[in-house]
């Protein structure tokens, strides 16, 4: 059996970057643990200091197929090209080339509108 994993992103604004990727992939914010209405309520219940509440954000595939994405606050910015990145699939190999181009262009426009460059 293969091992499960999540993909973790360093971020200066975990919640903001999580919102971008949720929109990009059709993911949703991970719901708070059972018994808690919101993440704030959970954080308060387990005694996480308020200044640490925005240290992490997690998004999940609502269909349960794709891996969880976790965003963690780090002090430093990006200094070099990452050697690990995500490819977002919008077309299938069997999709005709014209149609694939159109799908990719539409997705790119959508991502730029959501804050990508």
């Amino acid at each position: 059996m293969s091992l499960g994993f999540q993909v973790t992103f360093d971020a200066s604004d975990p919640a903001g970057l999580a919102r971008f990727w949720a929109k990009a992939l059709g993911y949703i914010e991970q719901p708070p643990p059972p018994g808690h209405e919101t993440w704030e309520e959970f954080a308060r219940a387990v005694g996480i200091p308020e200044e640490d509440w925005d240290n992490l954000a997690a998004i999940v595939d609502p269909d349960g197929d794709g891996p969880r994405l976790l965003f963690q606050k780090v002090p430093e910015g990006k200094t070099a090209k990452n050697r690990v990145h995500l490819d977002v699939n919008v077309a299938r190999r069997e999709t005709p080339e014209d149609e694939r181009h159109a799908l990719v262009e539409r997705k790119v426009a959508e991502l730029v509108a959501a804050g990508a460059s």
Partner: protein
Amino acid sequence: MARTIQIVFDANDPARLGDFWIEALGYVLQPPSPDFESWDAWATSMGIPDENWNDAQAIVDPDGNGPRFFIQRVPEGESAKNRVHLDIAVGGGPGTPLDERRSVVDAEVERLTGVGASVAGPVAQRDEYWVVMHDREGNEFCVH
């Protein structure tokens, strides 16, 4: 419906890094199309020069659950910590007692060291325990 993703790694030696992640995750080399017995046979028939055979490697989850990994050759090495990394989940999460998680994680770290990873160090925080590691080309990843 959510978009599917694939994970892409830059590498100096895609086959070697791909073999590591096959061992690490229990993935398999993506099979060539049924018309070809091997990727070498495919590359020969496509007229791809020998020196380009190791330009890329794709590995997949044999169970069909996890995303495909595409490992592509690049000339440069790692110059800074990646801002994207994988966390391998073996410990069972918060529902599993910390002691138990710790021993499962440590056993997995030992297995991964045996297939070419190196240990950067363990982290214990609140009720959490994980170990930071590097793959064969220095990419950070964690075992939880």
